[in-house]
């Protein structure tokens, strides 16, 4: 039974193991959402993916949006029209959606709206470690932080209720460890909402021209006062009273678990104020906690920035409580990367002046020693990845000529690794083309500028940057790495493919048509697995005076392999003809496919790893690689 079937068929009151993100999706279903949207991004992706599948079973509209701001606007329009809605994104996605987010706080919503931001401490799969709780404070929107999958589900429901009470959206902030933690979750009843879409025209509220905006800003602040009262009473801000040690702890989100794990390990009891709602804070509860624990050191444990910590200090100051508040400002806990039980155990031991159960430094030394002696296993482009031949062709066409390579967000960012080393600069989604506008101007007489962007990223943020380039007469080469999927986040659909939604088929938008419509004349669509045509396209583009767009089109190999499995087809791998291989290492050093091995001074192809793309056979200078005969394929 697949997970989706389990989520649908398990009766309320029963437990199933859910990923934090799946639990958020189930929470949204239990809250009776009518609309949901997302743009995929790790660690948020599974929320949208689960909702997409669940939309076949429940009565709500789901769509993958072109980017996060459109996703947020889709959800906002629904919530303004009295339909509960949820939008999910990774932390940096909220930067994209921030323009809508900030003003949505002014106009507010009618039905509940939950905006999920999945933050990524340690930047496991991100370009930064920003703490999006700042956005709640920034916009004046309440922030709720679950600490495990059960809470992820329950707090999502609570977030809808809070949102409806205040008529403001609520920011549900998870971190990678909450989103990607699985545990048994007891399912709840699904609310059947009698929803009639209702939009009552009210320009003073919904059209924030300056005169209206000035009034609406006051509304935000009034709502925050109401939110404070909710924060005082809400059960998710709870006290865990545990016999006395010299420390009392205020913690939020995943960090609550590390505090509880540390208490057990150190066999010390501590009073803990566990915060599920971290903006606005329950000031009275905090004042009482500080007063009740006035003889103790107060330790604040939270993921990333000292947001609760700074506010607790402010509250203590305003209430003239002489508490000793410890945490990140005094460097007891780090402000970078993620917390873990060991860091928290260590900090508590330090305050209590007891011997920590582990010698972190000694273990780190052993770990470093072991790791330094063994080969690394970094992420690599898969055997048969369509991006590989594109990068190979770029190198060949440039033939040693210097160039600036602007890259973007996707699997193809791995082009920065040897031997290709294609990818000199990256900021965010779409920055490859955005920055190419300027690099190509600054270095126009010196070197070519080549931008690399995936199909999903192109639609997300590449379009305006490319229009800018055309309009301002820049000269650069854009490669749209069209693998027809959002591969890195788990193969979500893109705007250029057709797929089935609950009640309709999506329409495919052809990238070549879009690009041509901007007036770009040199547009080439090339098969990502045909090396010679790729090289020719790049040679031509390097000579072209103006913007060239090369659409390198080849399906993600993981999608191809899945489709082949479903059809019962077998991969027919390639092989090296031993008597023809001269040991020149072109395939090993320049193509660098993980299926190509080096043994006894000759190349070999691992038949298990080879996906049969055939690129190596095209680039071998001695024609020493061929497809295996089908009857050989007994592997």
């Amino acid at each position, binding site marked *: 039974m697949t997970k989706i079937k389990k989520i649908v068929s398990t009766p309320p009151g029963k437990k199933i193991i859910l990923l934090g993100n799946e639990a958020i999706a189930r929470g949204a279903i239990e809250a009776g959402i009518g609309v949901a949207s997302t743009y995929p991004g790790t660690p948020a992706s599974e929320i949208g993916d689960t909702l997409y599948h669940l939309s076949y079973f429940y009565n709500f509209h789901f769509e993958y949006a072109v980017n996060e701001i459109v996703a947020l606007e889709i959800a906002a329009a629904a919530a303004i029209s009295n339909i509960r809605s949820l939008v999910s994104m990774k932390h940096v996605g909220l930067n994209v959606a921030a323009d809508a987010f900030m003003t949505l706080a002014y106009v507010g919503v009618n039905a509940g709206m939950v905006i999920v931001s999945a933050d990524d401490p340690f930047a496991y799969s991100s370009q930064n470690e920003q703490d999006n709780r700042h956005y709640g404070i920034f916009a004046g929107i309440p922030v709720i932080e679950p600490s495990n999958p059960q809470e992820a589900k329950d707090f999502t429901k609570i977030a809808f209720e809070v949102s409806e009470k205040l008529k403001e959206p609520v920011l549900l902030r998870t971190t990678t460890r909450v989103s990607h933690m699985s*545990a048994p979750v007891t399912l709840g009843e699904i609310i059947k909402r009698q929803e009639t879409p209702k939009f009552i025209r009210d320009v003073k509220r919904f059209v924030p021209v300056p005169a209206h905006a000035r009034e609406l800003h006051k509304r935000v602040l009034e709502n925050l006062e109401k939110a404070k009262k909710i924060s005082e009473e809400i059960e998710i801000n709870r006290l865990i009273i545990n016999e006395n040690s010299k420390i009392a702890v205020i913690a939020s989100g995943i960090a609550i678990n590390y505090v509880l794990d540390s208490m057990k390990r150190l066999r010390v009891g501590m009073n803990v104020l566990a915060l599920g709602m971290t903006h606005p804070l329950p000031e009275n509860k905090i004042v009482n906690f500080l007063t009740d624990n006035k003889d103790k050191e107060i330790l604040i444990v939270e993921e990333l920035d000292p947001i609760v910590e700074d506010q607790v200090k402010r509250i203590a100051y305003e209430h003239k409580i002489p508490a000793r508040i410890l945490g990140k400002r005094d460097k007891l806990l780090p402000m970078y990367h993620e917390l873990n039980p060991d860091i928290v155990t260590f900090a508590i031991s330090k305050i209590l002046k007891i011997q920590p159960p582990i010698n972190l430094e000694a273990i780190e030394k052993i770990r470093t020693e072991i790791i330094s002696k063994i080969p690394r*296993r970094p992420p690599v482009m898969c055997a048969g990845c369509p991006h590989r031949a594109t990068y190979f062709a770029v190198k060949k066409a440039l033939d040693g000529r210097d160039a600036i390579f602007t890259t973007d967000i996707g699997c193809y960012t791995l082009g920065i690794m040897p031997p290709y080393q294609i990818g000199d600069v990256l900021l965010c989604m779409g920055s490859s083309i955005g920055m190419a506008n300027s690099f190509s101007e600054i270095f126009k007489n010196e070197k070519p500028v080549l931008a690399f962007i995936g199909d999903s990223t192109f639609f997300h943020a590449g379009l305006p940057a490319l229009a800018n380039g055309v309009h301002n007469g820049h000269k650069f080469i854009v490669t749209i790495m069209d693998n027809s999927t959002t591969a890195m986040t788990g193969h979500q659909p893109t705007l250029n493919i057709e797929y089935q939604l609950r009640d309709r088929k999506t329409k495919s938008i052809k990238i070549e048509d879009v690009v041509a419509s901007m007036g770009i004349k040199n547009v080439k669509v090339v098969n990502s697995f045909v090396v010679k045509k790729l090289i020719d396209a790049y040679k031509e583009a390097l000579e072209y005076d103006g913007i060239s767009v090369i659409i390198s089109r080849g399906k993600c190999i993981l999608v191809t392999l899945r489709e082949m499995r479903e059809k019962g087809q077998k991969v027919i791998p390639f092989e090296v003809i031993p008597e023809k291989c001269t040991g020149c290492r072109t395939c090993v050093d320049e193509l660098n496919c993980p299926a190509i091995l080096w043994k006894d001074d000759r190349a070999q192809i691992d038949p298990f790893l080879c996906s049969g793309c055939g690129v190596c056979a095209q680039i071998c200078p001695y024609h020493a690689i061929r497809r295996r005969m089908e009857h050989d394929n007994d592997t």
Partner: protein
Amino acid sequence: MTTTHNIDELNISFVGVGGTGVLTAAHLLAEAALLENLNVVIGEIHGMAQRGGSVFCEVRIGENVHGPIIPIGKLDILVGIEPLETLRYSYKLHKKSYVLINTYTIPPPSVSIGKEHYPSLEEIENTLRRFTPLIYKINAAEIAKKTGSLVTMNIVMIGAIAGLRILPIDANNFIKAIKTYFPEKYHEQNIKAFKLGYENMSENIT
């Protein structure tokens, strides 16, 4: 160790290479634990894990476990679906931890192209012995081949840990978990893999 439901804390880590079923193995164990009415927490990291990357997944079982991260020195069972990765994640072991290694190696690309050296199994074992003497080896690839495909290596490993008889989970609950976790057409193959792994390890320890 006898089976008990008052298990306080048991931490198991699965490590290996992306695409070899590390996460599946961990989730199967968790499902079996839930069938045993045990509290369980799984911690994993997704994304940027294309096929071939280093992957780990942590399972924590017991009444009093909270977070998804196993503290250092609290890892009770390390299940290495690939030897090199077993070594990479060994730093959380304690003196009485069990280590189960699949001897089937998957060389990283740098080794495949002759730029780096893959340590011998002996070297790997010697390093692991710095932490614990309780090291068990199994050739899960050989056993998986008997089920028709290498893809069941991870299930063979699950069978092997069950065969060690240190988990508070009945073997039947693993079989039940396999049935709820996989589509029906894969039941027979996976149950066979589990049983072969179980028998192999049972013989190994007696």
